[in-house]
């Protein structure tokens, strides 16, 4: 149960500063908390509420709407197998059965060693490469049973740590707007004038 670390508070404030209203930073901050702890702790959600000026109930209300946020620990590797039409047409159901057998858990379950959580996912936008899956949101395309086995073996042996970070980290690169280059966000009510470049003249 942890609040955001000092480093993450700095990042959180940087993110909040980009929006005209702090509450817009809610989802990015929830990702930040999940990156820190692997899932969303109550303390982190209370802390996010303090940072963006919302109640913790509002933070939970938003967070609980979205599939990616987890409220209890999941495996280090979240394996999402797509089951929507294009993948279903190309054998995703068999792949899911195979995955359950290989990992010894049902869909939604986590292996005893805490390494893998298996989930039935909806369309992952890789429909021509069916059946597809994501491990912590990194793709594997046209996955056969043998591919699945070697993927699990590689992950278990720690061979893919450079490519696939532990659950919670989605993007490993963040946006940073240099202080001297950014325009800065202002609350909408403090702007009434048209942007200066709408002066009927060419800008260049």
């Amino acid at each position: 149960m942890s609040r955001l670390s000092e480093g993450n508070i700095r990042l959180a404030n940087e993110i909040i500063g980009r929006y005209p209203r702090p509450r817009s930073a809610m989802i990015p901050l929830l990702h930040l908390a999940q990156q820190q702890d692997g899932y969303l702790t109550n303390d982190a959600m209370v802390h996010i509420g303090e940072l963006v000026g919302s109640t913790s109930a509002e933070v939970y209300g938003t967070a609980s709407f979205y599939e990616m946020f987890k409220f209890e620990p999941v495996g280090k590797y979240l394996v999402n197998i797509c089951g929507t039409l294009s993948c279903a047409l190309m054998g995703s159901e068999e792949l899911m059965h195979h995955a359950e057998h290989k990992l010894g858990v049902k869909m939604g379950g986590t292996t005893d060693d805490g390494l893998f959580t298996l989930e039935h996912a909806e369309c992952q936008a890789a429909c021509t490469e069916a059946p597809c899956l994501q491990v912590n949101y990194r793709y594997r395309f046209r996955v056969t049973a043998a591919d699945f086995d070697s993927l699990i073996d590689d992950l278990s042996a720690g061979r893919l740590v450079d490519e696939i970070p532990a659950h919670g980290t989605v993007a490993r690169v963040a946006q940073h707007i240099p202080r001297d280059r950014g325009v800065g966000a202002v609350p909408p009510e403090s702007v009434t004038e048209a942007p200066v470049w709408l002066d009927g003249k060419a800008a260049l």
Partner: protein
Amino acid sequence: MTGTYAHAPGFIVGDRPKIVTSRFEYEDSYTLTRYLATDGYQGLRAALSRPANEVHDEVRTATVLGRGGAGFPAGTKWGLTPQGVYPRYLVVNGDESEPGTYKDRLLMERDPHQLIEGCLIACYAAGLSQCFLYIRGEMALAQERVAVALNDAYAAGYIGKNILGTHFSVDIVLHWGAGAYVVGEETALIESLEGNRGMPRLKPPFFPAANGLYGQPTIVNNVETLANLPWLMCNGAEAYTAIGTKTSPGTRMVAVSGHVKRPGVYEIVNGVTTFRDLLYKDEFCGGIRNDNELKAFVPGGGSAPWFTPDQLDLPFEGSQVGAAGSMLGSGAIMVMDETTDIPAAALTLTRFYAHESCGKCTPCREGGTWLERILSRVVDGKGTSADLEQLIEVGTSICPGDFPHASNEKLGLTAVPFPYKMNTICFVGPSAYAPVNSALVLFREEFEARIVKRHTIPVTAVGAAL
């Protein structure tokens, strides 16, 4: 030249005009270096060399149709903002999640600077003072590539204060979702961007162009739509409209998946290329797998009513596809061959939409769930013939009246044109019914076969055992 770029899995090249995928052939297409070496940010220069209203006019003249699903022209959309109300915002819809669709993901992963340049052109033309680039939460690589591109473009002076030394200044903020299909709907996207549950708003009054983000005029544009703008600014509306047809100019990215020999994402000439071309020509999918018979196909993403071989000669053009009873949607075709279990295929889509209902509108929240349950038991061979009527009844409570469907010569059906009427705020509810209705109208015998099977179990068995 025909083939697949190994570094852009899914994308298949050919000798067709390329507007948005011209850099995909380079392995480093996502870098600023490559972008600048291939006319990058020249469209922005061209735009800034003209007054903003002229740039807007150019986009209007080109009739750049929205590539997200509704197909509304971008130039017209920009013009719907109320006079004199500021600030105005740009929200980029990169929350691509329609079943069967992926082109925005490729555009973000393979050419993020092109999208950024498109955003800048839109902001300049329509007087939008801040841009939020909303990327689907599950697209880790796209988020990383866009983040790097934004950081590089800021450092090089293409975004932020005094762009290219002018008085044009705008920030582009990378925002990302957390997994919710409905957020692809523009008002839900705005709710999500305000830090809320992503539930659609009523239109009216919440037409984003008038009353969007923070209640301000807001333009929501799809990634592919904006990616067209740099080319348009460099080459002009005349060159743009010379490709494709009058009603559907330019090109479109289309993903063809399922039972074809070469599933892939293709940039095709808009309005001209037919479904038969796409499915059968060697430069595209090369036919149905194992040379099987085509049974049905979804022409425009999971929400679209289905077509059968009767509709193969239709071009990829919105009004003709609409009159034929479906829609082009987000540019996604899913192909089912003769081996397909139609009720089970429909169930995967209905399950998707039932799962993704945000719960705001009762017909969708309850109806989607009931459609899934009933269909599920029919697929399992436990349905009754009353279930088939019940499916239609539930569907009609979501979409009153005749639901659009294709014509079919063999069945003696005439088309019911698009669009449908709906008792819900957004299209998620109707989308749960679309596959059920299509499957029931076009392949009813497959449903009845399952029910008949159930009735062959002797009902007297219970009595006999007593």
